[in-house]
């Protein structure tokens, strides 16, 4: 009985760099919680190293990075590299949300981001995507 498995999808919602706009991150965190996920929220102004640290230590299935500053081409690759250094890139579903131009989004997907969600994406769409693509353990 007590050894029965109980497992919720664990997510890290991260704000990185000099970007003080956290409404989107809050809304996503709440939607994930209401979907039954466990959500760790980093708060604002994190370095890529701090996000990697949190993702690895919290052993999350999903890392959602919210960026509205335009620095995604610099910050996201650094996070992906950090995850790879810890052997965590392959089984972490990395999502990016924010204002990302399509050309950049394609580039980020090539680097290992599973999906890029722009303005107007419905919460249900995001939750469904996570449920469908969460890495098997």
């Amino acid at each position, binding site marked *: 009985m007590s050894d029965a498995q*109980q497992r919720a999808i664990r997510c890290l919602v991260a704000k990185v760099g000099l970007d003080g706009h956290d409404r989107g991150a809050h809304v996503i965190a709440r939607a994930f*919680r209401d979907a039954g996920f466990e959500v760790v929220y980093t708060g604002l*102004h994190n370095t890529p190293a701090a996000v990697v640290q949190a993702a690895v230590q919290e052993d999350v299935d999903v890392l959602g990075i919210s960026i509205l500053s335009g620095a995604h081409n610099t910050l996201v690759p650094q996070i992906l590299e950090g995850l790879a250094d810890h052997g965590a890139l392959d089984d972490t579903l990395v999502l990016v949300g924010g204002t990302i131009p399509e050309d950049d989004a394609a580039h980020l997907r090539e680097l290992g981001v599973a999906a890029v969600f722009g303005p107007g994406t419905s919460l249900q769409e995001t939750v469904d995507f996570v449920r469908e693509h969460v890495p098997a353990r």
Partner: protein
Amino acid sequence: MTPAALAEGVLAGDQRALARAITVVENREPGARELLSRLHPHRGGAAVVGVTGSPGTGKSTLVDRLAKAYRAKDLTVGVVAVDPASPFSGGAVLGDRIRMTGGDMDVFVRSMSARGSLGGLSAATADAVAVLDAFGKDRIVVETVGAGQNEVDVVRTADTVVVLVTPQSGDDVQMLKAGILEIGDVFVVNKADLAGAGRTVRDLEEMVHLAGGRVGSHRDGGEGAGWTPPVVETVATEGEGIDDLVAALDDHRALLEDSGRLDRRARERDAETLRRLLREDVGRLVEAELSARGGLEAAVDRIEAGETTPYDLAAELVAPFERLERELAGE
């Protein structure tokens, strides 16, 4: 990853293995017991500090500062932060993560949700602490909202309990009602730059004095009785008073060591673990017996139909084990 490989990774200092190991024990995944069993001999005697207080008292900020102070002394730190889960979705938003120590891998922070852990939240926390201890952390901080019995049990898995209050958080009767006097080894008045801080400190000191030292983990007297919980003033956001808090924690730790109480606590913990494991095992055996006889629902149907009572049925289900036990004893 097998439990053996995971344990090896933890003992070799691998961050990812440590993170995975905590997931395994938290979720009671298959292999959790083997993992804990392999790590058990490697417990290194980390000093475990519990921090509790109402929402908004500044626990996370204080723990953050505490971790930073320990790092300045070149001590490695593990933090287990327990937050409540939503009673509706079962999901949880697990606090702001520690930020000042962000990027420093020698501070390991793990958030846990107080979802309906079958093995008990305090057991899951204690197991996570055991893994961090075996990993080699020098200091481990368990942080939880002091809202209910569950959380009080969690924080009491620590050797030293810090209770956090803020000025004007209610009069002394409120504090007595909340039961915090009973569990605190060290009291912290955080946000001590706010008006009314002096009064809160005096109220606390008076209560500690009236209790005659029979508070905190020493309320039962015995070795180490006579510890008077200090009341420390901090402004965690500014880092003020953190050195005083570290000194108070060190003092309490020294008292636990010198009085032999630390060893006694370790014995108590092992005894409690053994009791818990036995309860789980026996429970599983009996559940198997129950499902072999058609399961819980069918059993309840019989009770509702008036064929039997819960009391008779329980005795009936346990009878085979009792018979076996008698046979083994009689051979």
